[in-house]
């Protein structure tokens, strides 16, 4: 009994003591449920990758083979804008990969300590074909994110495999494939004629796709990557659509069925490749927009005004088409349903807006807008009243403009020379465009946030009208 009394006394007294001294702010907060720490992004935007030189496990190794592949891989990774590379001088671990199957296990801390988020090891074997195998590690979590093997004929472009590997490394970190292994077609006058050219998306492997001495323009990739649709004046000195093919489809003039008494100014494949949006005029009339099957059947006229209507661009779901009309007195971007109904004006700011390009994810329409005598590329949200946040790092203090229906649009990048003809990378993270900022037109690429501008074409001639191709299969 006495024991219990004492313990009761002790409890009461200690309660008082605690009540007087201990219930300070710390005690109170900790006694409650702990608050959560809210963190928002800082400045870091690029992961750091430590990439080993792949082991050359060919029967007859060649000293330059692996370093050359490595240089291509590094360049393609940097092109992604997702990775910066850790210098080999900083490596704590080996610079060259060991055998993937029989080598020692990787030590994650060796790589996380030097600030690498990603560690890439691999091997290449040249036998009857070129075989590449690689692994991507997340060093902080010490988890293998990817392991893949590619093979290709010895005669094929070896840089392509390096770009393909780089795109996979990007995908393993952000879930969205890189586009270094895609291709861009464009128009160049570098050899004196206006011909269609093709290059890798990082600017490598530039080569001519047409060679007919006539005027060739407006290339557009077939969605399966097996051909390029373009406009050529090579027959009757009048514009018709042609196909340049490296697949099963026969190259040559495409819509012969429509006859020769028309002018086909421009064709754009729908995302499925089943239809072509066509700018065409009957003789003596202004250009209108049609859709037609690639074999020339099922022609449908979509626009019926006296105005000039050009530059169709498919929405990714193929249900709508953006186009340009001057029916209001100045060229503006409009959107209509794929049957031509429901035509609605989209751009209101600026007296000259043209060349819409719908992003493959559907969020944006890029277009060129003339303000003060020069064209800039702008992005606009095609959905009424809803906008997707996008950061621009613009050098000027120009503020974004609000159109009367509440949509916001703002220039992608600013510079003293015109940027024209935007085209989207298949992952919607980059755009290519032509720009005269160097004094003559060149093809450039830029990240969708306006950063990471990079010129792809060099040398003489005008390089214009880029079209970004699909992912390789």
């Amino acid at each position, binding site marked *: 009994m006495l024991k219990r*009394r004492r313990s*009761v*006394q002790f409890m*009461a*007294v200690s309660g*008082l*003591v605690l009540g*007087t*001294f201990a219930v*300070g*702010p*710390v005690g*109170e*907060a*900790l006694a*409650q*449920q*702990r*608050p*959560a*720490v*809210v*963190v*928002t*992004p*800082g*400045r*870091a*935007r*690029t*992961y750091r990758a430590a990439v080993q030189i792949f082991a050359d496990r060919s029967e007859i190794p060649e000293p330059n083979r692996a370093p050359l592949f490595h240089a291509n891989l590094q360049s393609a990774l940097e092109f992604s*804008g*997702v990775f910066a590379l850790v210098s080999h001088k900083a490596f704590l671990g080996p610079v060259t990969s060991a055998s993937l199957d029989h080598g020692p296990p990787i030590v994650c801390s060796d790589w*996380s300590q030097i600030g690498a*988020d990603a560690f890439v090891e691999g091997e290449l074997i040249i036998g009857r074909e070129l075989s590449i195998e690689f692994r991507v590690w*997340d060093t*902080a*979590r010490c988890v293998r994110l990817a392991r893949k093997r590619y093979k290709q004929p010895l005669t094929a472009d070896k840089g392509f495999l390096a770009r393909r590997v780089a795109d996979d490394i990007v995908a393993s*970190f*952000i*879930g*969205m494939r890189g586009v270094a292994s895609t291709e861009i077609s464009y128009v160049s006058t570098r050899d004196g004629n206006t011909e269609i050219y093709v290059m890798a998306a990082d600017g490598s492997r530039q080569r001519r796709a047409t060679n007919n001495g006539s005027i060739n323009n407006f290339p557009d990739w077939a969605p399966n990557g097996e051909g390029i649709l373009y406009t050529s004046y090579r027959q009757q000195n009048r514009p018709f659509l042609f196909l340049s093919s490296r697949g099963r489809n026969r190259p040559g003039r495409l819509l012969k069925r429509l006859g020769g008494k028309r002018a086909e100014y421009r064709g754009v494949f729908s995302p499925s490749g089943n239809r072509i949006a066509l700018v065409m005029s009957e003789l003596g009339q202004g250009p209108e927009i049609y859709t037609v099957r690639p074999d020339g059947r099922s022609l449908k006229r979509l626009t019926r005004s006296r105005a000039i209507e050009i530059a169709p661009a498919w929405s990714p779901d193929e249900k709508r088409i953006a186009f340009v009309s001057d029916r209001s007195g100045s060229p503006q971007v409009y959107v209509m349903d794929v049957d031509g109904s429901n035509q609605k004006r989209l751009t209101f700011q600026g007296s000259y807006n043209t060349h819409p390009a719908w992003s493959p994810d559907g969020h944006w329409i890029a277009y060129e807008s003339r303000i003060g005598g020069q064209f800039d590329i702008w992005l606009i949200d095609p959905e009424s009243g*809803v*906008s*997707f*946040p*996008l*950061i621009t*790092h613009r050098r000027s203090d120009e*503020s*974004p403009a609000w159109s009367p229906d509440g949509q*916001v649009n*703002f220039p992608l990048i600013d510079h003293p020379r015109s940027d024209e003809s935007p085209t989207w990378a298949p992952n919607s*993270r980059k755009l290519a465009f032509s720009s005269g900022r160097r004094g003559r037109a060149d093809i450039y690429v830029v*990240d*969708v*946030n306006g*950063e990471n501008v990079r010129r792809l074409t060099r040398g003489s001639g005008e390089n214009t009208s880029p079209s970004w191709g699909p992912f390789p299969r």
Partner: protein
Amino acid sequence: MERTLGMHWGGANRQDLRRFLKISAAFHALGLLLLIFMPTLPKLAPPGVIMVDLVASSSLVAVRPGPSAPKPKPPKQAPKILPAEPSTPEPSAQPKPTPPEEEEPADYSDILAELRSELGEPDVVPENEPVQTASLGAGFGPGRPVSPVVAAWMKAARIHIRRFWVVPPGFRNQSLETVIEVELDSGGDVRGEPEIVRRSGNPWYDDGVVRSIRKASPLPAPPEAGRWTFVLISDEI
């Protein structure tokens, strides 16, 4: 028990009661004296809420679904036209609640300056930025007081994680939000595996969140070892 006690106190041993009352009175007097003669004491316990960010808190509360409710698709937001420097938020651009009482907000400049010098780098966060709080538990809504010590640590932890958290442009401003619980020891070391308690819907973003916590270990030493919750939001507020 109560009845037993009552019988006991009212029973034989009244001396015990008296003795207890004396001790109690002495302690009360001591407490009073301390309150009166220690002018620094009130400063240790600043009243009420320190800082509240209604935007952050309410959005956290709003998007928190019930256990069975599916995660609502993050709504497309009106574009935020950010100042030239994305990592310097502008609190005045956000609606802020008027404080319920006219109170002098506590001054943490000393603590923060100390922390900043400890971190060895200039603070990228403006001084008047509100301390963002959120809690997963019921009853800890917006406006709940956070002690200066906890608030200062929260801010230090936030700055620290930011330095290690890589957010590629494609993830920014996509309204992604991952809630992660981390076991911290008293020195700030991350113990065991951080546990994602709510996913953002984008597994690569979630991976990046875990990666950032791993890279950030050791965090600044927390006020108390144990499980702490972090909410990593992709939007550059």
